């Protein structure tokens, strides 16, 4: 390749990279995207839904043009027991079909290819089937990338190359992911005709639902861990994912593929996916907890966006944050080009642009949620048994022989769920209410 110096090289044509390139090309800068797949998206796995909050700003008419599967009208949260499932109340909101910000199921192989093409149409250059293996350094700053097809130089490199980011590691901004900060997603895409999906989940064409299941896994080591399983409706397929933290998986000692296979056998999920045929088996890592030190998001001549910069929310949503961080990175590059300086000091403006996108807040929230030893996971591990015992008394009372219960149903809810986590000012009034309720209940 030539000695030409581009304004910017974007490594990775996922949502973050394509958003950055789209924005840069629209601003009239000379931008190149390098993608290791032959086609953008073919190395990626969608483990959630596409939240269109940022896409709406970038491509306002995306609904007519983007390859979308189904618009999500309801998220159903369930707790799985051995032979039972507790479905929590949820809202199916048909107004979501016309909301400005929606969530869609998509296939990344289709969506990323389309989104990268938007950037190309705006004037970006896409180099597919090329792996960035190293960075070029010049006077202590990143000056380009090395590939087997030759070197490529630029004033700034945006690393949007995902959770196992080469740019982040080679630039020294981040170390390889640690087991406690990533979760492993194992996913299966299952063929099912559209009419059957619509019948099974009570949908119209174009509408979709998500089912989230929390459940437990205990392995040969005797350790029990909580993990999530999710079922998504695509146009003519379902995707079933199992998501578990790598350190949890390691501790409980159950092979990753078995974690998903166990869910396929669960009586409820087995009924939801019956009659399907496996289309593809996939795996991917999701980063959690943010970067912590925000000055690790930029260096001399380099910026990190998307999963490479650990831009996921505290719920692990990464689609809109990827696009928003890509846009912020693009605006930083434009600002640096206007200033003619690409040092770390100038690129620190990235933080201001991120703040405008609301991403400093999400980074902080993600960090806090990850640090406070995740009470959500504690609840998911400790409470299912208790919740099931309460639920059985309400929903199953004519089937089960009543055992001796020390508390009224309210009292039981208080003692098993509220008391262990609530602060004193919540515990005190509710505890009193539970005590009164139990006394009345015993008298009956």
């Amino acid at each position: 390749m030539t000695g030409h110096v581009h304004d910017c090289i974007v490594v990775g044509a996922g949502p973050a990279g394509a958003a950055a390139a789209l924005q840069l090309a629209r601003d009239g800068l000379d931008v190149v995207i390098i993608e290791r797949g032959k086609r953008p998206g073919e190395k990626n796995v969608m483990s959630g839904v596409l939240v269109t909050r940022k896409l709406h700003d970038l491509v306002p008419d995306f609904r007519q043009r983007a390859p979308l599967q189904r618009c999500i009208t309801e998220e159903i949260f369930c707790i799985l027991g051995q032979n039972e499932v507790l479905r929590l109340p949820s809202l199916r909101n048909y107004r979501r079909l016309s909301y400005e910000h929606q969530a869609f199921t998509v296939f990344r192989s289709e969506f990323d290819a389309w989104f990268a093409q938007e950037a190309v149409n705006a004037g970006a250059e896409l180099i597919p089937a090329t792996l960035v293996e190293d960075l070029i350094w010049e006077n202590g700053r990143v000056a380009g990338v090395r590939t087997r097809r030759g070197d490529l130089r630029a004033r700034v490199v945006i690393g949007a190359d995902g959770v196992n980011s080469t740019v982040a590691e080679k630039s020294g901004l981040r170390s390889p992911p640690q087991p406690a900060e990533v979760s492993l997603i194992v996913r299966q895409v299952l063929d099912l005709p559209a009419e059957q999906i619509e019948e099974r989940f009570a949908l119209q064409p174009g509408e979709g639902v998500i089912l989230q299941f929390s459940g437990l896994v205990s392995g040969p080591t005797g350790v029990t861990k909580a993990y999530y399983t999710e079922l998504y409706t695509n146009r003519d397929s379902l995707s079933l994912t199992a998501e578990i933290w790598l350190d949890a998986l390691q501790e409980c000692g159950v092979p990753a593929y078995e974690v998903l296979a166990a869910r396929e056998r669960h009586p409820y999920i087995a009924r939801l996916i019956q009659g399907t045929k496996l289309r593809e088996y996939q795996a991917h890592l999701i980063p959690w907890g943010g970067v912590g030190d925000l000055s690790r998001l930029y260096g001399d001549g380099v910026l990190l966006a998307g999963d490479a910069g650990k831009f996921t929310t505290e719920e692990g949503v990464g689609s809109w944050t990827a696009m928003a961080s890509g846009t912020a990175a693009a605006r930083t590059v434009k600002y640096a080009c206007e200033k003619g300086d690409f040092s770390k000091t100038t690129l620190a403006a990235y933080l201001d642009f991120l703040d405008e996108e609301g991403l400093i807040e999400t980074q902080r929230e993600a960090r806090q949620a990850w640090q406070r030893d995740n009470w959500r996971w504690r609840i998911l591990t400790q409470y299912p048994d208790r919740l099931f015992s309460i639920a059985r008394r309400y929903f199953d009372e004519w089937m089960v022989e009543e055992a001796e219960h020390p508390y009224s149903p309210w009292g039981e809810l208080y003692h098993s769920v509220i008391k262990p986590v609530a602060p004193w000012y919540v515990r005190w009034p509710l505890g009193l209410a539970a005590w009164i309720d139990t006394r009345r209940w015993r008298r009956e």
Partner: protein
Amino acid sequence: MPTKAHLDAKLATVISKPDPEPHIVVQTELCLACEERPCTIVCPANLYWWTGDQMVHNCEGCLECGSCRAVCPHGAITWRYPRWGYGVRYRWG
């Protein structure tokens, strides 16, 4: 439990073209001292297995998630992305 056979059937749905220059290199002498061998647990394609006295791995069929590298306690696994045009190609990612 018939899950290993099931896994093979599942892996058969994945299109992948192995890189002639192996993208996973394991310093197997370090594995001899390893007690947990987490790579054998976390790999969703079950590419690592312990034969009883040594670690064996396979680069073909890698799903490129990077879990093995993240969990290896001894830094024995050198993992990189397969070069251009090689590796997994998800059609429904």
